[in-house]
């Protein structure tokens, strides 16, 4: 009895520091964003309750829809770019190859770099006067193709998406490699003895066996791209003329530049609910496998 009581207080004491910090600085803010989203507030003077006014206004705001559209581009580029490239490279790397480890190491490198470093590096690569791409085009005599990549409304989004793909292919590569290692060798061996070509084995056995992981990767990819912020904030700031604006960036500008805290929070809530919905759908589709 005495021991049990002592254990109970130990459990409480042990959980307290983590739980307290987490509740105050992660859970409380996310709940607050719901509260602020039904208020009209500039962050300093008194708040007034406006109900769903912010959301109504938001859904009528063409700039918000523009940011949604651009965000969908990022999602599409990520899912259609990162996942297939990563899967392809992972399938190539998942065999006895000399130097496989080096390719893996280099492949994953961009993932550990700070997004700010990546944005600035690629900013220089896209630089209109002295950037790598234009310099390359000039050196092979294709000067006519040189562009102001990040300064042109037609090209900016494409340039941004290429960088996003480059940054995260490695992440999915590693995830796929981990999954491929769990495919039992005997199954593949059996298929080979039955005379299946490598192509058939890959498509009929390997890929179906890691299908769950592929779905998880797609979800991570979608959820991750809905949150794109740092990269675009540093590279283009959403410009030129909103052509690379995404939801998180739009939220940031509305809140901290235009001081519309309530309105900005409404955007936050939409991003949050969107991510949550997506994860729920996939969780349902996959059973309990995701989170």
């Amino acid at each position, binding site marked *: 009895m005495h021991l049990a009581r002592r254990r109970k207080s130990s459990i409480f004491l042990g959980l307290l520091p*983590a739980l307290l910090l987490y509740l105050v600085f992660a859970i409380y803010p996310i709940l607050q*964003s719901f509260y602020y989203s039904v208020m009209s507030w500039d962050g300093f003077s008194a708040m007034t309750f406006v109900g769903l006014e912010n959301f109504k206004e938001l859904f009528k705001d063409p700039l918000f829809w523009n940011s949604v559209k651009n965000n969908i581009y990022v999602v599409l580029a990520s899912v259609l770019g990162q996942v297939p490239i990563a899967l392809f*490279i992972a399938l190539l790397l998942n065999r006895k190859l000399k130097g496989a480890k080096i390719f893996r190491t280099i*492949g994953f*490198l961009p993932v550990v770099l*700070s997004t700010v470093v990546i944005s600035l590096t690629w900013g220089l*690569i896209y630089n209109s006067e002295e950037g790598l791409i234009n*310099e390359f085009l000039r050196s092979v005599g294709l000067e006519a193709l040189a562009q102001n990549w990040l300064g042109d409304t037609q090209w900016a989004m494409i340039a941004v998406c290429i960088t996003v793909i480059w940054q995260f292919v490695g992440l999915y590569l590693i995830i796929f490699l981990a999954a491929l290692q769990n495919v039992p060798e005997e199954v593949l061996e059996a298929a080979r003895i039955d005379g299946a070509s490598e192509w058939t084995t890959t498509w009929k056995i390997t890929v179906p066996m890691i299908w769950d992981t592929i779905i998880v990767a797609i979800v991570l990819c979608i959820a991750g791209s809905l949150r794109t912020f740092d990269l675009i*904030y540093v590279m283009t700031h959403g410009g030129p003329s909103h052509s690379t604006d995404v939801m998180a960036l739009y939220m940031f500008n509305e809140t901290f530049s235009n001081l519309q805290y309530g309105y900005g929070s409404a955007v936050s809530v939409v991003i949050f609910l969107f991510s949550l919905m997506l994860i729920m759908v996939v969780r349902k589709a996959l059973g309990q496998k995701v989170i």
Partner: protein
Amino acid sequence: METTIGSKSKWKNKEKGAKKKSIKKTIIYVVLTLFAIVNAYPILWMVINSFKSEQEFSVNQFGFPKEFVFENYVNAWKAANFDILFKNSIFICLAATVVTVLIGALASYFLARFSFKMNKLVYTLFIFGMIIPIHSTLVPMFILIRNLGLLNTPITLLFPYIAFNLPITIFILTSFMKAFPKDIEESAIMDGCGVFRTFWSIILPMSRPAVATVMVLNFIHNWNEFSFALVLINDPNLQTLPLGLASFAGQFTTNYGAQMAGLTMTLVPIVIFYLLLEKEIVKGMTSGAVKG
């Protein structure tokens, strides 16, 4: 994984097969090499050009520098106050990582090894944090930190960094600790060890591999974090590297050499860190990502 031709096949077939195999291997290597170049070249390009003078950069972007110019580094170091940025980043990173892993491990220990009424609820609450998009918390975080009087202090960033790294930390550590056999603590308690003593002298040392993974993941997250720093810090003396670098690049838009030198200086420590601890990083990324 290599396909082997059965020993019964005729010699001719074998030779044909071997030739086909070597062509296939060559194609694979070409593809992988291309992939590696695409991954590494942007970074190498930047590092190499950071040693060139402005004139050389504009005429010779692809080759190695004729002579290494270190002036870019001196300029960047001075202009961006790199000594302050490095100091701030190292302090925040280390402090946040140590606190997160310590209190996270302690919480994981109780969640993994004890059954109590709220166990499942508390665990789920923590894991939920992995799906919160941090940008949704920027506004309330700013207001909260401001109301607590914590804007622009040396420890401001510790709070969000710890809070948002706890979920993955607890997730990885709990699943690791759950796998220990039960009798370990039982014998410790028999010997008169208290609960906390058992955690500190038995469970924590036994969790070393997972703790290493979590430490590395935390460190990289904190080292690279930008959004919270952007919103919560505007005193140049308190900026972290990513933040300082972004504002420095904004001011030096045309001084490419200094920009690239600044980027290289930020890049090198984390690349070395990655190469040394790659195993831990990859382990953490996959266990975190595949399962949640």
